[in-house]
């Protein structure tokens, strides 16, 4: 009672009911629909209902719970959309009458990023963003550093720095999880080393978020670079 403002307590029930209503609508629509793509879009709505219920808590705990929920939802959407595309490709390949176009692009016309700023500035800006993100650590730092990686990946044609190969993203992700879990464990086993545990968890989260955002940049580059 001490930590939650009086106004937030009166907002608790409406927020919970709103979350339940949104979740009910979304799950009903999922039950009715047959196409997988529509179900994937409707899954977003279930995520919004989750945010309603969690945010009704009204303290910092809510904020701490919303962040991983959103990131997990993002990763899940990315993975399922890839699975849908791959499965549809296989289905069409097995059908001899269908003609599968080998190149498919994000944009209807050939889309070339021929702005001058894409060839001169990005190395420096990406370096600054990644450095600043590492300095920030944690979730925000991961987002900032990931923005730098996206910028660099989108402007791969730029000269100067050697081209980063982000194929090892999976390995980095595993190391990040290990750091995070070790940090979490230290919190409970040896609470006097809380600062070390905090930094382990923050660095793990930084690697995790940055690699994930960078992966999205890589996917988009695959689509854009095709002439």
């Amino acid at each position, binding site marked *: 009672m001490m930590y939650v403002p009086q106004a937030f307590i009166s907002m608790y029930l409406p927020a919970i009911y709103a979350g339940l209503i949104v979740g009910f609508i979304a799950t009903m629509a999922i039950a009715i629909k047959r196409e997988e793509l529509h179900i994937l879009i409707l899954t977003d709505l279930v995520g919004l209902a989750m*945010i309603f219920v969690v945010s009704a808590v009204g303290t910092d705990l809510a904020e701490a719970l919303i962040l991983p929920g959103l990131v997990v939802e993002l990763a899940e959407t990315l993975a399922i959309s890839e699975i849908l595309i791959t499965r549809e490709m296989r289905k069409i390949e097995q059908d001899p009458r269908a003609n599968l176009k080998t190149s498919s692009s994000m944009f209807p016309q050939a889309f070339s990023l021929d702005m001058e700023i894409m060839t001169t500035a990005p190395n420096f800006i990406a370096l600054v963003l990644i450095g600043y993100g590492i300095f920030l650590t944690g979730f925000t730092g991961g987002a900032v550093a990931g923005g730098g990686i996206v910028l660099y990946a989108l402007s791969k044609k730029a000269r100067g720095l050697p081209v980063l190969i982000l194929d090892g993203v999976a390995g980095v992700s595993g190391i990040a999880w290990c750091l995070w879990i070790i940090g979490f464990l230290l919190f409970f086993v040896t609470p006097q080393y809380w600062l070390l545990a905090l930094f382990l968890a923050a660095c793990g989260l930084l690697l995790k978020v940055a690699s994930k955002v960078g992966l999205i940049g890589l996917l988009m580059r695959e689509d854009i670079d095709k002439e």
Partner: protein
Amino acid sequence: MVIEPFTVFFYFGIFLAIIGSIATAWGPGVNDPIVRTFNTEVASIGVCLVLLCYNHVLALLTLLATTVIISLILFRAIIRLEEMGADV
């Protein structure tokens, strides 16, 4: 009883979220997946208002960022599937 301004925004956010989710589920033209994706944005703006009332700044920023990235991913999936000639 004085009605606080943020209470108004809170209930308006709830209203927008419910209207947006109904529009996403059964709204006009939702058999086109792009229309359905756009309708999701209405509901997410409602959730943004609610988070703003709760002073959840970090959660609000993350929600905005992930909404943009999720809609990019969904558009990519929709466009690729339509190019391949799948029935979406």
